[in-house]
């Protein structure tokens, strides 16, 4: 039981990661692919933050009378990752808008057919 509770976080991280991966490789809609990529990304955030948590620890803000803190380093790395993630999402969405202008669709199958009918 203790093993299950102690590893539940990591298993949910893996479920989220696989759901994201499956959405990216099996769905044809480009916006949905980007959302799948974002789910994958959030799962990695959870992996890092879970590894940095200490039982009974406080948030890493130094205060009188607090002895145990969580690990600040994963928080820093993930702060950077979240902001970079939004920048890359914006870039991907801009590419989708351009694809829509050129092909008139954002469905992968239709784009594939258009490419091969030229």
């Amino acid at each position, binding site marked *: 039981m203790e093993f299950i*509770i*102690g*590893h*539940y*976080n*990591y*298993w*949910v991280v893996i*479920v989220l*990661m*696989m*759901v994201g991966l*499956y*959405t990216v490789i*099996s*769905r*044809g*809609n480009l*916006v*949905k692919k980007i*959302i799948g990529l974002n*789910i994958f990304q*959030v799962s990695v*955030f*959870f992996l890092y*933050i879970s*590894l*940095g*948590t*200490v*039982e009974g*620890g406080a*948030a*890493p*803000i*130094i205060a009188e009378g607090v002895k145990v803190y969580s*690990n*600040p380093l*994963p*928080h*820093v790395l993930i*702060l950077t990752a*979240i*902001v*970079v*993630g*939004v*920048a*890359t*999402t*914006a*870039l991907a*969405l*801009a*590419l*989708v*808008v*351009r694809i829509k*202008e050129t092909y008139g669709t954002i469905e992968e*199958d239709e784009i594939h057919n258009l490419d091969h009918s030229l």
Partner: protein
Amino acid sequence: MIDVVVDIILLTFLATTSIAIMRMTNLFAIVMLFGIFSLLSAGLFVVMDAPDVAFTEAAVGAGISTVLMLATLALVKRPKEPYYDEAPRAHRAWLPLIVVTITGSALVYGTWDIPNFGSPDAPSQTHVARFYLENSMPDTGVPNTVTAVLASYRGFDTLGEVTVIFTAAVAVLLLIGGKRPKPALRSKDEEAQDEA
């Protein structure tokens, strides 16, 4: 103890939301659910003692990402249809399902070696984390260790992050900013060139 219960409940919600996102076809509903997904993750970050990450995720993940996706949907949706429904695939994808199952099982096997969630003697707690917690106050005078590490100890990381955001902003502006010829106009120009 209550931390662990909230943690497990929120994680279950999160997994359910992600599966709902995967199975739905209405893109507007998917984007809204993704906003809920981000908000749930912000709540989870608070439970896991990471308030800075929670702020960022709530503002950037639930806020800016959702707005960007809604704006994209408004630009790409088909005329005369109120919602954008995803087109069904021509064939059912079995290969992705097999790939995902195998990868997932391998990853679950890998978790056997990870120490329990929250254990204080895990390898990730015993190296630089202690140095930052003990020295950040005398070195920088900032009580929030995350801020001290972000802006001082790992300041070059943050500079790199800013470079990435700048590059992405320039690329987005080059792709969709400013005036550019409409595809229809361009084809007319090409016809005129062909006639001439």
